């Protein structure tokens, strides 16, 4: 047991506890955010320290610290930091529970970092539940009728999904007798399955896993909760949900399906096709239903369903890959990174604007471009990135993921995807239009705190960085994909 390997997690846990404890004594609650950020930074530092070196496993092969896990740890830590920066305004209005807020964010981040490194079903399940439970509370944090409703929906559906996921894990375990991913792969290998009804137990398990994780990543048709929850949750948490939670889902899908179910080929073909079909439907539904939306958070909810569709394209590519060249994985990873900064940026801008206009309705965003051009510019940039127009992270991600898909003869799917991008332009640009073209309904400029501005700047910087010189992150993503150990 090598505790060094879990220092990032330990740091997170400690900082969460410190935050809770200090909450009891501190008067200046803003320090809590600073402490949380410090914890995230230290944790980040620890993770960086682990980057060099080969994949190492610990805790009896339940945890693997490889570049894949570390990449996602970086991602989650950065996202959490952005969320916390974005939350400071929001949270400072709470009379109580500020410490709990930050602690829960930190704990769910902890769950995510564990999840990406976990290579054993029980650990995966527990880590997933840690994330979920923290998020249930965070979604309902405002305790007004919308927030609690969102929380209830999320919780009940999430619990059903957890049960289904667990059932799937049970079947996988039952079929192979193992819970460690590597062992499962080995067991499947030694069984030398030929497909057909004799392995339906495994297939059923696989389906249920897809459903369980599909719920997390908002894959069609398990995406129904998304718009409601996104709308009701506190905006920073919506951002967190849409980015981190989704990324965690994808991370674990990549890990499980690649490590445990990649062989035999017919198996990976099976789930590859499932993902491909779900991707196609999901992105179409998400984009089409996003068009008539009037609430921007809800619209971004649908948009995130569509984005999940693009991402699943990468998973499908991974499944259908005959050459095992990691292109599918690395494209998903890169897309996630780009999507993370983009969506974070968009939500941060929304927080700032909603603060001022006091509404999440798109029509109330009229004239933001005139009152606060920089803010509007930032949101425009993020929306453009979501549309997938070049020199933004969104474009590069799509390009990468589509290129991976084309290589696997998924051209039909890519065509659906690119057409979907066109549809999506309509509702993204509608927001842009409202901001820049319509006459302002409010007076004065949109003020925002330094933390918010910093977060927004960082996100936009990320969007442009990944859009213009994506090389470094792409390289990281490629390493991450290749160095997935088990």
């Amino acid at each position, binding site marked *: 047991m090598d505790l060094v390997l879990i220092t990032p997690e330990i740091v997170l846990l400690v900082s969460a506890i410190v935050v809770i404890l200090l909450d009891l004594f501190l008067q200046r609650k803003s320090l809590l955010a600073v402490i949380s950020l410090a914890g995230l930074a230290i944790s980040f530092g620890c993770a960086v320290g682990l980057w060099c070196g080969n994949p190492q496993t610990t805790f009896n092969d339940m945890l693997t610290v490889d570049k894949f896990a570390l990449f996602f740890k970086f991602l989650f830590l950065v996202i959490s930091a952005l969320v916390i920066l974005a939350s400071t305004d929001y949270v400072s209005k709470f009379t109580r529970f500020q410490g709990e807020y930050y602690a829960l964010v930190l704990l769910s981040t902890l769950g995510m970092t564990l999840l990406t490194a976990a290579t054993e079903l029980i650990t995966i399940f527990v880590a997933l539940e840690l994330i979920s439970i923290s998020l249930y509370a965070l979604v309902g944090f405002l305790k007004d009728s919308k927030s609690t409703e969102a929380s209830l929906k999320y919780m009940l559906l999430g619990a059903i999904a957890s049960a289904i996921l667990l059932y799937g894990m049970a079947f996988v375990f039952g079929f192979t007798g193992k819970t460690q991913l590597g062992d499962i792969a080995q067991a499947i290998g030694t069984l030398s399955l030929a497909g057909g009804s004799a392995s339906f137990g495994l297939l059923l398990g696989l389906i249920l896993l897809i459903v369980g994780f599909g719920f997390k990543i908002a894959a069609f048709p398990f995406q129904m909760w998304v718009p409601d929850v996104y709308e009701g949750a506190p905006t920073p948490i919506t951002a967190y949900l849409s980015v981190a939670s989704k990324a965690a889902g994808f991370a674990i899908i990549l890990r499980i399906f690649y490590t445990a179910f990649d062989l035999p080929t017919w198996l990976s073909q099976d789930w590859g096709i499932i993902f491909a079909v779900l991707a196609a439907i999901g992105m179409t539904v998400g984009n089409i239903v996003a068009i008539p939306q009037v609430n921007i958070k809800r619209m971004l909810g649908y948009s995130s369903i569509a984005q999940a569709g693009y991402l699943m394209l990468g998973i499908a590519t991974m499944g259908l890959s005959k050459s095992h060249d990691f292109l599918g994985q690395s494209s998903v990873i890169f897309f996630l990174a780009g999507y993370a900064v983009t969506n974070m940026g968009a939500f941060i801008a929304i927080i700032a604007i909603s603060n001022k206009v006091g509404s999440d309705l798109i029509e109330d965003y009229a004239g933001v471009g005139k009152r606060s051009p920089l803010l509007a510019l930032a949101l425009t940039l993020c929306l453009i990135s979501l549309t997938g127009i070049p020199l933004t992270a969104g474009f590069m991600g799509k390009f990468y993921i589509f290129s991976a898909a084309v290589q696997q003869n998924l051209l039909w799917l890519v065509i659906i995807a690119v057409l979907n991008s066109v549809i999506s332009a309509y509702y993204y*640009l509608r927001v842009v239009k409202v901001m820049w*073209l319509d006459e302002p309904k409010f007076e004065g400029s949109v003020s925002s705190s330094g933390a918010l501005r910093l977060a927004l700047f960082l996100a936009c910087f990320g969007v442009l960085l990944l859009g213009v010189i994506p090389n470094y992150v792409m390289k990281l993503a490629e390493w991450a994909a290749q160095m997935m150990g088990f």
Partner: protein
Amino acid sequence: MNFNILSLIIFLPALGAILIACTSNSRAKLIKYIAAIFTLIPLILAICVFFSFDRSPTMAGVIQFEEKASWIPLINAYYHVGLDGVSLPLFFLMTLLGFLVVLISWKIDLRPREYFAWLLLLEMSILGVFASLDFLLFFIMWEIEVIPMFFLISIWGAGRKEYSAFKYVLYTLFGSAMMLAGILSVYFTTHSLSMVDITARGIASYIPVVPQALMFFLLLGGFAVKLPVFPFHTWLPDAHTDAPTAVSVVLAGTLLKMGGYGMIRVCVSIFPDAARQFAPILISLAMVNIIYGAAVTLKQTDIKRLIAYSSVSHMGFVLLGIFSLTTVSLTGATLQMFSHGLITGLLFATAGIVMHNTHERDINKMGGLARQIPIITVIFTIAGLGAMGVPSTSGFIAEFMTFLGSFQSDILVGAFPIAKVFTVISILGILLGAGYILWLLQRVFYNAPQDKFNGVHDADKLERVYSAIFIIMIFLVGVYPSILTNVIKTGITPIINLLGG
């Protein structure tokens, strides 16, 4: 050339855009001067490039002013720019129009900072499209253009400007979506994004991931929307009609040419076999474009809309020239792109002045303006003559060479010489062209003067200056076309060699 002159030309406007973005809206004069300077310098540099371009036959197919730097090594993407005979004229045209549209926009008072920043960004992206030799760079530049256009149309436009802006964006994205799929297919067939390398090796030497025809049509889809090819053309009249004048000029002048350029550079060069195979379809579409476009033009009553529809017809000549696949027709098509850029640019610019000065855009309500605004009348007439293809204007030689080349084409369907027959039918287009231009002139400028237009201003000094530049260029190319054909043929010759003809 040691210093990166192309990059300098491409990115100077972007730099100007950033500088403008940093000023304040109230300093409109400063903004306009910055815009003028940051488009004038590229123009001067482009003139240098144009004249130092080596036209000798030995340079056929050689990329000049090449710059290549690794960009995203993982996917073999390079920052790779350079010019050959096909791209140089269009590149030059864009720098020219880039400068002229700043002058055309001199009267813009609404949010000048954003306007000029977007305008310069637009110039950068179009220059980038013409110069880039890497698919990814090409596509990126292609896509960037959408954003400035969206804003330029929807904020500074007129009429149903938002509808038009959205329509423009969605059409363009639809096209580029197709193109992206095509580019990816090409990439995975060849594992290269370099247009030059792929062309040099020939796509046939690779094992395609999808049928060649599919790749061809995907790529063509993007270009066809932009050119535009019937039935993807309906965005064009709307965008033109509602865009501000300067943007219409750029739109007609160079944006449409991106489609034609792409067809030559990608569809024909990279897929010579597919191009030959599907040429009959495209030639048929070209004919439809020409005749149908002209016919619809005749029915228009909005001055800008009329000119816009005439572009549909004129772009049909480009399509005809390209897919007739002969040296002369391709040269003609390229020349037609250049010429149409000048002529229609001038038409739009002048129509813009007319509309600005008279506050009227319905042709039926105009008339008799020749007495009140004689200079504009002369300018408009010259541009109209160019559009009709009257000899000594660039329009004539371009259309003539297109016809000449396409009639030489040996493209058959069975034993039916489709290229020849459809060329002859297409020549009817010049007849209809004369019809709509002359009828337009008559309805706008002739007949008895109307009292309501008394006191309408004629072209001012600035307007005369830029119109003069347009006119000089139109006649220069019309009288001395070798200045361009010598350049163009160095780019066309290797393509014809690929076609095996």
